[in-house]
C-alpha cells in the first residue's frame, strides 16, 4: 500500500544571528493510510519545524537543504506557495494546533474564521454564492454537533474568548475536518488542556479517524498519549529520527538507547526514576555522528564519526543505531 505521507532524509537549517543551525538532520517518517502516527520527542527536538516543513510554513530564515516530502504521491517540496494554499493546506491536510487559546483570531467570530477556511477549500457540490455558503454553514453546524459543542448554531456567532479551552479545541478539530481532508496533523493538541478534557479529546480523535477515513500525524512529548491513541510511533532526538515502528513493538521492547532512556523517565512506566545524563546538543554545534552519542550509555567509537544507518531491531522497528546496523 502507498503511504499517505512519507518524509525522507529531511534536512532543514535556520540561519540566525549566531550562524546556521541544523534543526532537522535526516528525519524520516511514514504514515500508512488510515493509521495514526505518533511523533515523540522532547521540546526543542524539531517537532514543530517538521510540521511546518510539511505544510510549507517554515519561518523566513529557514531552508530545506535536502530530502523529500511526498503526500498522496506528490512531492510537496516542488509546490509553489499558491499551489500549497490552493491544493494542500486546509483542504487535503487539516491542522490542529497546540494551544487553542492562542490559535483563534480574537477579533473575529468563530463562524467567520471557520467559514473563511471553507470559502477556498470546501467542495462546492456545484453550488455558488449564498447557496454554497449555506451548505458550508450546514456542514459546520453538523460537525460542531458531532464535536459535542453545545448550541452549534449560536456558537458560530460567538467570539473565541467566550469559549472554554476544551470547547475551543473542539472548534479547531471541526475546522480541521471542515474541508474533508485525508490527513490531519495535530501538534500536541492536548498539552494545553487539563487532564479530564485531555482524555475526552483523545477519545474523540480516535473515533473521528475511523469515522472520517482519516490518517493522522500526532505530535507529542507524552508516551502515555501515544500508547492510548497511536498505531505507529516515530521517536525524534535533536533533529534526527532514531526509532520508528508499531507502537506495541517500540514501547514493548524499545531498541534505541534514547528510547529506552526516555521510557525509563516516564513516571508511569519508570522502573526507577532517573533522568538522562547530559543535555540536548545545540543545533548550532551538533556532533557529526549520532547526536545522542555524548549522552549514550552504550556509546562506541564509530558513533561519533558518522550518522548511523537505518537497521532493524528484533521487534520489527527501524532503528538508527550502530548496535542494530
Amino acid at each position: 500500500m502507498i503511504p499517505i505521507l512519507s518524509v525522507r532524509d529531511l534536512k532543514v537549517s535556520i540561519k540566525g544571528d549566531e550562524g546556521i543551525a541544523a534543526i532537522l538532520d535526516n528525519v524520516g517518517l511514514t504514515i500508512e493510510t488510515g493509521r495514526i502516527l505518533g511523533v515523540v520527542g522532547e521540546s526543542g527536538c524539531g517537532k514543530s519545524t517538521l510540521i511546518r516543513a510539511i505544510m510549507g510554513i517554515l519561518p523566513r530564515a529557514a531552508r530545506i537543504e535536502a530530502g523529500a516530502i511526498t503526500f498522496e504521491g506528490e512531492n510537496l517540496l516542488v509546490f509553489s506557495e499558491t499551489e500549497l494554499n490552493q491544493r494542500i493546506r486546509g483542504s487535503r491536510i487539516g491542522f490542529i494546533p497546540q494551544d487553542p487559546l492562542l490559535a483563534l483570531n480574537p477579533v473575529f467570530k468563530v463562524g467567520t474564521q471557520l467559514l473563511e477556511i471553507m470559502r477556498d477549500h470546501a467542495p462546492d457540490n456545484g453550488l455558488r454564492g449564498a447557496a454554497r455558503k449555506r451548505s458550508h454553514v450546514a456542514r459546520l453546524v453538523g460537525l460542531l454537533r458531532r464535536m459535542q459543542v453545545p448550541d452549534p448554531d449560536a456558537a458560530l456567532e460567538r467570539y473565541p474568548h467566550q469559549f472554554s479551552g476544551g470547547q475551543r479545541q473542539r472548534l479547531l478539530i471541526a475546522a480541521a475536518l471542515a474541508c474533508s481532508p485525508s490527513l490531519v496533523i495535530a501538534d500536541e493538541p492536548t498539552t494545553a488542556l487539563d487532564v479530564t478534557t485531555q482524555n475526552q479529546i483523545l477519545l474523540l480523535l480516535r473515533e473521528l479517524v475511523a469515522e472520517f477515513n482519516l490518517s493522522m500525524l500526532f505530535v507529542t512529548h507524552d508516551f502515555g498519549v501515544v500508547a492510548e491513541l497511536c498505531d505507529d510511533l516515530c521517536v525524534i532526538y535533536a533533529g534526527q529520527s532514531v526509532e520508528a515502528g508499531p507502537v506495541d513493538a517500540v514501547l514493548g521492547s524499545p531498541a534505541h538507547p534514547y528510547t529506552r532512556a526516555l521510557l525509563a523517565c516516564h513516571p508511569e512506566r519508570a522502573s526507577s526514576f532517573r533522568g538522562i545524563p547530559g543535555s540536548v546538543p545545540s543545533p548550532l554545534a551538533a556532533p557529526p555522528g549520532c547526536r545522542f552519542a555524548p549522552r549514550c550509555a552504550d556509546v562506541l567509537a564509530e558513533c561519533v564519526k558518522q550518522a548511523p544507518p537505518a537497521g532493524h531491531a528484533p521487534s520489527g522497528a527501524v532503528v538508527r543505531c550502530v548496535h542494530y546496523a
Partner: protein
Amino acid sequence: MIRFILRRCALALPSLFGLLVVTFLLTHVVPNDPSAALAGDAATPEQLQRLREQAGLDRPVWEQFADYTAKVLRLDFGESAFSRRPVTLDLAQRLPATLTLTVAALAFSILVGVPLGVFAALHHNEWPDYLLRLVSVLGAAVAAFWFAIMLQILFSMQLEWLPLRGELADTIARPPGVTGFLLLDSLLALRLDAFRNALAHLVLPAFTLSLGGLSSIVRFTRAGVLDTLQNDFVLYERAMGYRRSRLVWRYVLRNSVTATITQIGLLFGGLIAGGVVVESIFDWPGIGSYTVQAILTGDRQVMLAVTLLVGVIYAVVNILTDVAHGMVDPRLLDKA
C-alpha cells in the same frame, strides 16, 4: 454596546468639568482683570467699579462660575470684538470649512498611511521599510507652516498647478449655501466648475495638514502589524490555507489597527492645532484662521469659545475612538 458608550460618556464628564474650571480661571481670575481691558487705560476707578458691577465681577466666585456655566451651556459666548457679531454665529459659519479640511486630511492620512504601514511591515528590514521609516521620521519633524510654504512655492507659484490660497477662486461665483459645505453645495447646485475648483483649493492644505498624522499612522500600523504577525493564530491561519491577501488585509489588519485607532484619537489634537497654522497660511476660511485672527487682535471671547469648542471636540473624538476600538476588539466590550 449602548451601555459601553454611555459609560464612556460618563467618564468624559469630569474632564469636561475640569475644562470649564480651567477656562473660567483663565478668563475670570488670572492673570488680569478683564474689566480693565474693556474700559481701556484711561478709565477712572469709578468707571472701573461700575464696569465690574455690570460684569458681575464683584459677586462671589462661585456665583460667577454658575453664571459662566449657564452661559456656556446656552452656547452664549458674547460678541466678537473684531467682527461685532455673536461668536457662536461666526463659529457656526466657519465650522463647515474646517470640518471639510480636517476630514479630508484625516481620510488621506488613514487611506494612505494604513496600507503603507502594512507594506512596510511585510517588508520588514528591507528597503521599502527603511525608506518609509525615513519618510515618517522626516514627517514627524517637519514644521507644517514651513512645509506649506515650500508646497506653495513649488506647486502654486512655480508650476502653477494648484491655487495658492482660499477655498474658491474669485472668478467663480459661490453656489448658494444650502449645507454650508462648499463641496456639497456645488454638487447640489450642479456646479461642476465650482466643485472642481474647490477641490483643487483643498489639495495643498489637506495634504499639509495630513502630514503629521500620516507619519504616525504609518509608524503605528507598521508596529501593530509586526506585533500581530508574531501571534500563533497567524501561523494557524497560514497552516489552514487562508488566502494571503485576505489573511493580511482582513485577519491581521483588524488585530493591528487597535493601536492605530487609539493613535487617531490622539492625532485629532494635532489636526486641530495644525489646522490653526495651515488655515492661516492658506487663508482657509475656517475656525483655525479665525482663531489666529482672534489671538493677534486679542479677541478674548473668541479665544474662550474656541478653547471650549476644541476641548469638547477632543472629548467627543476620544469617545468615538473608544467605541471604534470596542467594535474592532469584542473583548473590550465584554470587559466593560
